């Protein structure tokens, strides 16, 4: 039984069957990649996991508990964090404030009316935030405005914001989209480092095969809303069905 179980999930948008009977199991403490051509339903699947979309059929369970019908913030409080395709950060705030917000969320829950205590009086939160900033090599940028950072740094910051909550499952939606090769390699190193340091399960949606094959322990190929194959990276390489899905009419 995996940490995340997706059973018979289907989702329809008007006349388009975006997901069709998807079954997927993510084993705890592994890196599981979900790949597939454009329009395969990767993002729809991810949105069904985080509470943004509710699937029409099937079930999604995380550690034995159903995720269906729960709000994004509730799912996050259960231990699922998400990194977006374009970094979603608090652009108007400083790097330090960006990190402190998830720290508060982790400590105080989804709502706390602490309107009269001071942010700077919270030593534990500050220590926690500084530690994670050191982990991602951003400590010297803590007073910078998040909006003024490079895209790579924004991605790094977003990752740190997710990690500081000590999630059990980290969902990454194309974490290297639009990055130069050097940045991509940095991100891969960062993710590998994260994986080594803690018990964490990662589900990565990715286009870039370089990223997938250098990290994933298990790969699921999605095409037209249905899982085509699920196997280890070595077996996926050169798999005829996968080539067919990516190249269309495969004349191998």
């Amino acid at each position: 039984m995996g940490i995340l179980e997706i059973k018979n999930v289907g989702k329809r948008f008007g006349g388009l069957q975006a997901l069709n009977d998807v079954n997927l199991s993510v084993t705890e403490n592994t890196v599981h990649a979900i790949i597939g051509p454009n329009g395969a339903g990767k993002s729809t699947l991810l949105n069904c996991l985080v509470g943004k979309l509710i699937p029409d059929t099937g079930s999604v369970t995380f550690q034995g508990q159903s995720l269906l019908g729960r709000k994004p913030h509730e799912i996050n409080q259960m231990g699922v964090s998400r990194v977006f395709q374009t970094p979603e950060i608090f652009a108007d705030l400083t790097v330090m404030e960006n990190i402190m917000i998830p720290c508060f969320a982790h400590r105080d829950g989804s709502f706390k009316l602490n309107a009269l205590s001071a942010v700077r009086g919270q030593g534990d939160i500050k220590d926690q935030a500084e530690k994670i900033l050191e982990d991602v090599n951003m400590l010297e940028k803590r007073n910078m405005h998040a909006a003024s950072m490079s895209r790579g740094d924004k991605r790094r910051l977003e990752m740190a914001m997710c990690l500081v909550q000590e999630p059990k499952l980290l969902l990454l939606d194309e974490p290297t989209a639009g990055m130069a090769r050097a940045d991509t390699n940095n991100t891969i190193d960062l993710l590998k480092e994260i994986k080594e340091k803690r018990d964490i399960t990662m589900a990565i949606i990715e286009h870039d095969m370089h990223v997938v094959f250098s990290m994933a322990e298990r790969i699921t190929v999605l095409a037209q809303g249905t899982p085509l194959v699920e196997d280890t990276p070595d077996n996926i390489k050169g798999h005829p069905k996968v080539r067919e899905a990516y190249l269309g009419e495969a004349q191998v």
Partner: protein
Amino acid sequence: MLGIEKRDLSLLVIVAILAFCAPFILNPFPTGSAMAQFNAGYPDLMQRFVIFGILAIGFNILFGLTGYLSFGHAAFLGLGSYSAVWMFKLLGYNVLPGIVLSVVVAGLFALLIGYISLRRSGIYFSILTLAFAQMTFAIAYSDLFGKMLGFSLTNGETGLQVYTSDPQYFHSDSAPNIPHLFGQEMQSTFTWDVAGWSFDFNFGYYMCALIMLVMFYLSIRIFRSPFGLMLMAIKTNQTRLNYTGLNSRPYTLAAFVISGMYAGLAGGLLASMDPLAGAERMQWTASGEVVLMTILGGAGTLIGPILGAGFIKYFENIFSKINEKVLHSWFDFLPESLEYGVVWVLEHFVGSGWHLTLGLLFMLIVIFLPGGLVEGGQKLAALFHRKKTEDTPADGAKTPAE
């Protein structure tokens, strides 16, 4: 000290000094001089400066921090006034119960209106709050509930006021027959005449100023709290906030209720200074005015709303007092034909036409200083700073640009 940072404390001290010295600051011209009409240091106007300051500070907690633009805050102002006058009618002229009730009533209404309106964000939220405010206005203006219940609840278009036939259960004959705080009348004014100047020290003003300072202090605490940080986070990226395990709804609702209570307090104080409550206080133009005050001063800054409120109330009173005669007396040094031309143009911008001036000022500020008066101040400070460093290049080299 007081649990706030040094920088915020100095801001609080500056506001306190401004508030307590207002009778001097606002009366810079001798009473007999031609410039005396620019004096704003009379009790009635000073009271309104600080009361609308409270309203704008509260509005800024919602709009400045969360970015939710409420177009219905005048409803809470009006509700506060009605509550206070009802307390005067039932209990007596001591202002304390009235002020307490006005905050409570506004808070409860804010909870209801906020609970419904905050289901939407952006322009839809603004429209919902506007609709609620207009409904409250219509109900108050027609005294709908009063008619249903068989007595006058808001007294319709005449406005609610205290009559001698009202019960006033706690009124004793020794107590004054106008609003007072434990016997100290709101209207009591000490006038200090000195060498042509005249300064008014009004009890009601100082009470309001003290309350305003407490409210300002409270808003500083809210701005610097984790709660305030979450409100700012809502403004910059609500999606990320939700995916960070935080529920934005209770945060926005709490901010809405707090700012509604500030507005209720302002309404209660308005009624305490002048025991009248009319429906026109709830008009959408009044809601628009507080939006103008906040943006003009600088939304999201601590001191901005107070500056904006002072700015608008000052110009409203001073510009609307200037009439054609005054203009003629200013320009009589010009040749007659020119004088009439100049006066003809300018008279449209003063008196009842002062809204034109306000509109122009607002446009100029929004276009050139989107951060409001506070941004203007910062730019000026930076300009002086740069000049200073240019004069002393050695110093400039030592301290790199911030």
